[in-house]
């Protein structure tokens, strides 16, 4: 098996926020076409880890490289899409339709001051189609449900054909069926386009059923490749504590397990 391209490489990363260490001596590697779940208790540093990967937070120690390039020199942000945890908490009266919002995904540092062309709008329509929100195209963004808002923001993120997509807790407060559909869409994206996806998620079943790598964060970072014989509970205990129980059975995945 040939060695996969390294998309993210973190070595000895320590991040401090408000004078306390939130991430300590983290090491991890994400390779091309990985579908990675980041889990861990609240306040454990999941969002901090994700934002560090985007170079948004100052780091105290360590190195991060994106697509083989040091993060301080990395400028090709067009290859990366990020959907923030707070994305859905926007002003409900903001005057935009879903199509206009997805179209904003095409606005970047690369096409400053240039009008969007027909091919850009074609891409917008394809992205909405992929996320199953075409019927909502002309609806005002404030009228969407939580799940629909998330799908809109992912459609906006995908419109530039990113090679790496980072999502911070995209599904808090969304029902189980919508959650399942959403992770399935991400699986399709990952499998069809080889898009590398990193998702912060509390849904451990979705992580272990659908993804191929898991990163557990509680100041310390533990990562593992998900295989049918992985000791999931043992790994999760490192982040959630000794009292944590998680029995993972492949049959719960109803055929969604990627190695089945």
């Amino acid at each position, binding site marked *: 098996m040939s060695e996969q391209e390294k998309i993210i490489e973190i070595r000895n990363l320590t991040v401090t926020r408000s004078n306390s260490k939130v991430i300590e001596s983290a090491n991890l590697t994400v390779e091309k076409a990985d579908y990675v779940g980041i889990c861990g208790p609240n306040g454990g540093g999941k969002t901090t880890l994700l934002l560090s990967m*985007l170079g*948004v937070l100052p780091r105290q120690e360590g190195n991060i490289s994106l697509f083989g390039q040091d993060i301080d020199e990395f*400028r090709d*942000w*067009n290859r*990366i899409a*990020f959907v*923030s945890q707070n*994305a859905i908490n*926007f*002003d409900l*009266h*903001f*005057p*935009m*339709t879903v199509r*206009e*919002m997805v179209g*904003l*995904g095409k*606005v*970047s*540092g*690369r096409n*400053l*001051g240039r009008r*969007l062309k027909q091919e850009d709008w074609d891409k917008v329509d394809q992205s909405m189609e992929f996320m199953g929100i075409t019927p909502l195209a*002309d609806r*005002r963004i404030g009228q969407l449900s939580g799940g629909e808002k998330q799908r809109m923001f992912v459609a906006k993120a995908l419109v530039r054909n990113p090679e790496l997509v980072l999502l911070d807790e995209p599904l808090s407060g969304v029902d189980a069926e919508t959650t399942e559909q959403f992770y399935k869409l991400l699986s399709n994206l990952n499998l069809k386009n080889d898009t590398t996806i990193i998702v912060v998620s509390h849904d451990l079943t979705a992580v272990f059923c659908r993804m191929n790598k898991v990163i557990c964060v509680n100041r310390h970072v533990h990562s593992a490749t998900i295989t049918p014989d992985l000791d999931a509970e043992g790994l999760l205990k490192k982040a959630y504590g000794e009292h944590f129980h998680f029995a993972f059975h492949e049959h719960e995945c109803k055929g969604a397990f990627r190695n089945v």
Partner: protein
Amino acid sequence: MPSMSTSAKGLSGMSDFFIEEIIRLLGYQFFQYALLGGALVALTCAVVGLLIVLRKESMIGDSVAHTAFGGIAIGILLGVEPILTALVFAVFSVLLIAYMRTRGLAHSDAAMAVMLAAGFSLGLIVVSAAGGFTVDLFSYLFGSILTIDTTELVITAILAIFSLAIMGIFYKELLSITFDEQAARLNGIPVTALSIAFNVLVAVTIVISIKVVGIILVAALLVLPGLSALQLDQSFRKTLLASIFLALLTTTLGIFISALFDVAASGIIVFTAVGVFLLAVAYGRLGR
């Protein structure tokens, strides 16, 4: 029915009178200047103002216009075109407000209050030291679009066209920043540079609006068209077009009514804009 026919004749006589008056007014150069200047300012206010409302910075017009008063007073004292000295003060003011906010020295509202106080008090000192208020200064406080002269119209036109061009080129980037600054930054949009540019355009828009409605009512001209358009709950494109339409409608109507009935144009323009806002609210609540 003699009474009805008399009143019908009376109405038709009145409408004939107004049509003649309007045609007569349109022949005057001062009125053509007022309409052209008013329309350019209305257009700029509609475009810039909608983003100001969405950024929740509606009072910036009030603050910066009052700061600009300091510049106007100095301009009149030194015999320099007051619009230009006002512009220097206004640009300085918006940039300082943005600086105080981004550096965490003060929230937007407090920073605006500080700049309003600083500029206006400086203006009062200059005015009193120069021997009191002049008619000229009153025209800046309360607006006097019907007295706009060639120099003022040319400066207004250049500034308005400059602002509209920049807004036209970077509108989608500015919209992206307004909706989610962090996401815009991660998309590689130069957020800091464009925010500074937008702040300068806000200052320019406020300064050219002073001639139309005066320092005291600038905030209304800047905010009301966009705010009224927002009540219609439309797409961004339609909201922007509605904002432009309403700004042009109220300003043009205000200038005509002002000239026909000899009342203050600034008062009529803003009062009409408030009326349109109330109608838009009613439509938004009941019409759909």
